[in-house]
């Protein structure tokens, strides 16, 4: 059974058709890419999977269970983690807090425990902090743990966001343009990091990206959408040569 199965996903924003007839079968352990020109609907698809919007039509099955109608925190609890196109860290909170909060879906203690600082709460808090620091360490930002996240450099913030996404203990990781704004050195690091993360955390990874280097470098297969509709799918080599894809990005050739 594929880990994520999307069939006939269609979504309208009022009268605007943002996504139309999108399908996907994502097997466990795969590293798949989603590309398309700006405004094609890629982030919208992520948002639909995460439960931010309820699709007008279509089915989204994660591990066999239907995600449609679930609220985002429920989707996250089932094992989907995500980063954002424009970094959405909680600016006035520390780096450590940003990652700690992502453990909410795994919390077992309640308000009463928190307010009374019971042993149960204390034990879980220690565990949360330990895990969070471990993750920050992997991403090389552990030394900034007590700093406000808004004070970090752009690249560091991106890494904190990824640490945060991993803190939810996902089976599926959604990366929305992780290479945006990165310089070539950072992109090289990313090219090593993503496969490493996949192996280390037994993840399935679905990436939206614009940077061809990243897409061609790490994706096993790629889907292309334009104006909300799928127009091509295949291996990186196949996609690079596909005329429809070229047209979508560069426009029709003038005779």
């Amino acid at each position, binding site marked *: 059974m594929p880990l994520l199965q999307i069939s006939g996903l269609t979504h309208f924003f009022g009268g605007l058709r943002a996504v139309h007839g999108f399908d996907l079968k994502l097997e466990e352990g795969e590293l798949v890419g989603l590309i398309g020109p700006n405004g094609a609907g890629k982030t919208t698809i992520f948002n639909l999977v995460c439960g*931010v919007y309820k699709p007008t039509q279509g089915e989204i099955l994660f591990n066999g269970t239907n995600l449609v109608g679930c609220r985002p925190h429920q989707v996250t*609890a089932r094992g989907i983690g995500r980063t954002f196109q424009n970094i959405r860290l*909680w600016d006035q*909170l520390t780096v450590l807090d940003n990652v700690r*909060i992502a*453990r*909410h*879906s795994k919390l077992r203690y309640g*308000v009463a425990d928190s*307010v009374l600082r019971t042993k149960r709460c204390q034990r879980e808090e220690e565990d949360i902090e330990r895990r969070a620091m471990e993750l920050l360490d992997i991403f090389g930002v552990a030394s900034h743990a007590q700093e406000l996240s808004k004070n970090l450099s752009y690249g560091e913030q991106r890494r904190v966001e990824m640490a945060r996404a991993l803190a939810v203990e996902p089976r599926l990781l959604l990366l929305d343009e992780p290479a945006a704004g990165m310089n070539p050195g950072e992109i090289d690091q990313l090219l090593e990091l993503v496969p490493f993360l996949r192996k280390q955390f037994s993840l399935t990874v679905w990436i939206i990206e614009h940077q061809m280097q990243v897409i061609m470098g790490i994706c096993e297969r790629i889907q292309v959408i334009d104006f909300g509709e799928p127009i091509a799918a295949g291996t990186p080599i196949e996609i690079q040569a596909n005329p429809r894809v070229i047209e979508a990005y560069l426009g029709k050739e003038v005779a």
Partner: protein
Amino acid sequence: MRRHSLPLIVVGLFVLTIGGSWLGILDAYVQLVLFYVGINIILTVSLNLVNGYMGEFSCGHAGFMAVGAYVSGILTVWLFAEDSVFGLPILPIGWAIPLFPIILIIGSIAAALVGLLIAIPSFRTRGDYLAIISLAVNYIVVSAITNMEVIGGSRGFVGMKRVMNAMGDVFDAPWLLIWTFVGIIATILIIHNFVSSTLGKGVEAIREDEIAAEIMGVNTRRTKVMTFMLSCGLAGLAGGMFAHWPGGYINPLMFFILRSTEVMVMVYLGGMGSISGSIISAILFTVLLEWLRPLGVFKWVVIPLLFIVMMLYRPQGIMGSSELTDVLPRLQTLLRADKEVKDNAPASD
């Protein structure tokens, strides 16, 4: 020695205020001001949870105070006093001392339940709707109480003072102040524990970016409701204590919009998202109000002016979003000596 610093400070304050009152060193007026300070601390810290930490805009805090005040006041009178409405007391006065905290807690729970009623529709949408709804609820609560002739309506409800005096007869101690002190400590501990836990941090995440919080696994709806209920419950606690003030009566107008506005002023004055800021500003503001009392009506001309000026020159309030321990690091070593400072023990005590 360091390990016990914080409890020592608390005990010290207790001895000063309660002991001083008991022994008559602090006169009735000072005791009253201390009482007001205490009530305002609880109100401010609890409202800060919603307006500061969660970034919402609740403007009807006095409404929940009213619920707590009337529920607790009525219970006290019903149980312990001879009253035109409820008849003879049900329990002997000796029970009043141990039962008083229970009565206060019942008042809090009532206020929290009213908060629950409001939270559910308000938090369906983001934006300024909580402001509007909390405003309307403040009006509704005051209006409802005004219409309940059986508990005094607009004339007010009396009887609590007799009970407090009788408690004093059983065992002579400044009971009101004692319970206020306990209430303050409880409030601060509850709020501090909550906001420093991961569960409580979710509240701030909601303020910073609610959608991201939801996507990262925070059940925003439930968190918002729980936080609001906690805040309202504590306002009810303050109300319950307030109902037993030496003046001896409560009426609906005491809990009207102006009261809510006072609490909002204290929250913003202290700095949103800072417990120590709320405490400091509650103390300062209460004292300022008392100090300006001779000005009569001009009091409320001076205060808004001061506030507007302060808004223009220091809009983040006294503490902004930092705590006292962030600004005075040595205070931190004093208070958290046992746990976090092990590795960098300062040279001097």
